[in-house]
């Protein structure tokens, strides 16, 4: 696996996009793994009683996928240090989410090579549904 090095990263670089169609199986598996069974994320009837068209994707799922987006990009032994994210619009089961990002800053601090990036998530209609920022450390 090719290592990602600090010297080869430039501000404006695009992070390889991650595309994920979120199925009901994914959401049930996620609920089973996290033991978070809030029915709005797995039961259509419950979600509709709450006023939603369909079961909706939990915010933490975005955090998990954004972490993966960044980890896949920097690869071992790069490390994700921080991730801030905000879901700005509801997403629903069977939506196809595109996780994207761009490098916004690179700097050295306390002996570490750090890279900041701006991240965002679009749905199949090109509508932005979440925004995020991340800080990672990479090899020199």
């Amino acid at each position, binding site marked *: 696996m090719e290592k990602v090095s600090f010297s080869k990263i430039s501000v404006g670089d695009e992070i390889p996009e991650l595309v994920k169609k979120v199925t009901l199986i994914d959401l049930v598996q996620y609920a089973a*793994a996290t033991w*978070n069974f809030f029915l709005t994320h797995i039961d259509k009837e419950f979600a509709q009683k709450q006023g939603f068209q369909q079961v909706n994707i939990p915010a933490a799922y975005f955090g998990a996928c954004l972490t993966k987006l960044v980890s896949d990009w920097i690869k071992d032994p790069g490390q994700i240090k921080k*991730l801030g994210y905000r879901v700005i619009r509801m997403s629903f089961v069977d939506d196809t989410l595109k996780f994207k990002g761009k490098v916004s800053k690179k700097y050295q601090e306390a002996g570490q090579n750090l890279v900041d990036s701006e991240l965002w998530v679009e749905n199949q209609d090109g509508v932005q549904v979440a925004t995020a920022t991340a800080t990672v450390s990479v090899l020199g």
Partner: protein
Amino acid sequence: MSEDSILTPDIKAMLGLETDLPDLEPIDKTTIIRYVQAISDLNPLYTDEEYAKETVYGGIIAPPAFIFDVIPTATDIGDDGRDVTRIALPGFKIARGGNEYQFLEPARLGDVISRKRKIVDVFERDSKKVGKIIFIVYDTTYSNQDARVLGINRETLLFFK
């Protein structure tokens, strides 16, 4: 002139409140496998012992956000499936305002994670859509059995009528 404040002294007094939350179950491979399948994360670092041994970690680790996402046991779940230890204000609607994860050290198989929650900010803002909104910001600090802090999750919750 905006309407009256909904930020009562009782709610304001939650600022600084610290709570020890139930420990997570020991981290096991089955749960990690379900988690990575749910997000289609095929990184062998989380599932393949042979591969993980050769990395800087020397063994399988949990995905970075894993400890922030799992809740302790099925006994901590209410009728609607929600975690009963979450912060709630009776009579208010709730929305999530965002999260800031800090990843300090990876969690490993067998780790028993303890969690401490501290409310770090409570304030009120006006909004056009729903009127007054109360913001509650809290840090949950995750430590392993050796009392090493592995991560901190700062979450902002919005409460409105």
